[in-house]
């Protein structure tokens, strides 16, 4: 009787451990997938920026400095590696772009240009997508990290060496410089 009971408890424990392990693996894959989504949008943003700069160059000849900064920030961002590095360089780029859009307000011809309007919609949509992909990534990564920290799933996480995921965070300075990205609306 005692033997059967011991086997029963063991089976329940093993089934539970498998379920926990699978849950952690699923979450880890979702986190990786979430990161890829951000990556896709970042790449799209990097592709759009040279277009934008070329289109506005003619109108904004006195703003060479700002345009160069955007290009530099963009080139730096394309070479970033890892979550934290990427977050920092993308923030710098967002700041430079924000300045460019703010300056563009002074050029009525530029604002009326159909091409520029379209590019601006594409770019602000891409900014939004980055923001939302980030929001999704951070939500799912937080879920993954919590699952590794709470009892009793932390035991399984420790046993199989799960590592907590980094969050895609925004620094204070970067946040202030951005007029058209809602990155900070966490509740």
């Amino acid at each position, binding site marked *: 009787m005692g033997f059967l009971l011991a086997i029963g408890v063991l089976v329940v424990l093993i089934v539970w451990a498998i379920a926990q392990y699978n849950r952690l693996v699923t979450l880890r894959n979702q986190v990786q997938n979430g990161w890829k989504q951000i990556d896709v949008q970042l790449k799209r943003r990097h592709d759009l920026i040279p277009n934008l700069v070329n289109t506005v160059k003619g109108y904004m000849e006195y703003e060479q400095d700002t345009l160069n900064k955007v290009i530099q920030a963009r080139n730096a961002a394309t070479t970033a590696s890892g979550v934290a590095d990427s977050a920092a360089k993308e923030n710098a780029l967002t700041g430079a772009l924000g300045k460019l859009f703010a300056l563009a307000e002074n050029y009525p011809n530029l604002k009326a240009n159909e091409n520029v309007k*379209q590019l601006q919609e594409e770019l602000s949509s891409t900014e939004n997508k980055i923001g939302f992909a980030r929001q*999704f990534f951070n939500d799912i990564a937080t879920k993954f990290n919590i699952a590794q920290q709470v009892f009793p799933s932390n035991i399984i996480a420790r046993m199989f060496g799960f590592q907590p995921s980094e969050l895609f965070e925004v620094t204070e300075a970067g946040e202030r410089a951005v007029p058209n990205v809602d990155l900070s609306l966490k509740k």
Partner: protein
Amino acid sequence: MPLTPRNVYEQQAYNRRLTVVVLAGFVLFVGFLGFGLDVFLLGFGPGSEEGMGFPFPIATVVAMSIAGVSATRSALNGDVSVLASATAVPVSDNDPKYRQLLNIVDEMSIASGLPRPKVYSVPDPDPNAFATGRDPAHASLAVTEGLVERLNREELQAVVAHEMGHIRNYDIRLMTVVAALIGTVLLITEFGTRMLRFGGVRGGSGGKRDSKGGGGGLGILMVFWVIALILAPIISQLLAMAVSRQREFLADSSGAELTRNPLALASALQKITDADDPTKAIKKGTAHLCIADPLGRSANEREGFIADLLATHPPIEKRITLLKAMAYQHA
């Protein structure tokens, strides 16, 4: 119902709980109706020699399967007929007029982590929107031309987020279950009232009741059952509307969670209600999937007990108040 200010997550948990409670009540109600039909009219009750002689709820199971099959069939192809009846046309990827809308839909599908639904436009000047499709992988989202024209980018995003909320919460599937329950009720009522009218009461009552003890309790139960049977069509409608309203609140808060901008949805709802022509293109059967009642029924605008019971949508004022509470702005 007093308005308790809740944040986005509390509101979602609250509406999910309420849906479960209402649905459980609905299932119990259907079970009671079917049980009564079995016991009182068909004589399959406990201890009866007729029929199978054991309490197997044959009428309930049959009615539920018929209604379930027909509701599932309509749900599987429902999106096609709903879109066709609303005269919705697919939006092409290169249409500059809808470029922004498509961008917004992309943004919201990223925010929700769901595949991008197919996008349709409805040639109607009244602002409205709806979602359909049996699951997130087969979802469609339709907006009227009036909506695209009247709302700004943030408001449009909020409306799309509300519809993505319906998709993410599997509301189309839920309303299919509700339709199946209503169908079951209608079948049982139809059958039951017919049998009552043509004197079909046998088995559980009559001579048998005298021969057994405790028949009085069963008799009182039967009176209750007959009353329930007569009121069943109304009661099931009311329960369905209650579920629908909870899902609207839930989609509002899901949308707010996606955009993290509840005030944009509040101002979109205000604009939609200010243009209060009925949306002619959208028919009655689709009403519960729209952002606002397309029929422009006064019940959805008025507050009060009766209006609350009869509407597919909660009063817009109440929705706006709750959204403002989610943005920590107390009206």
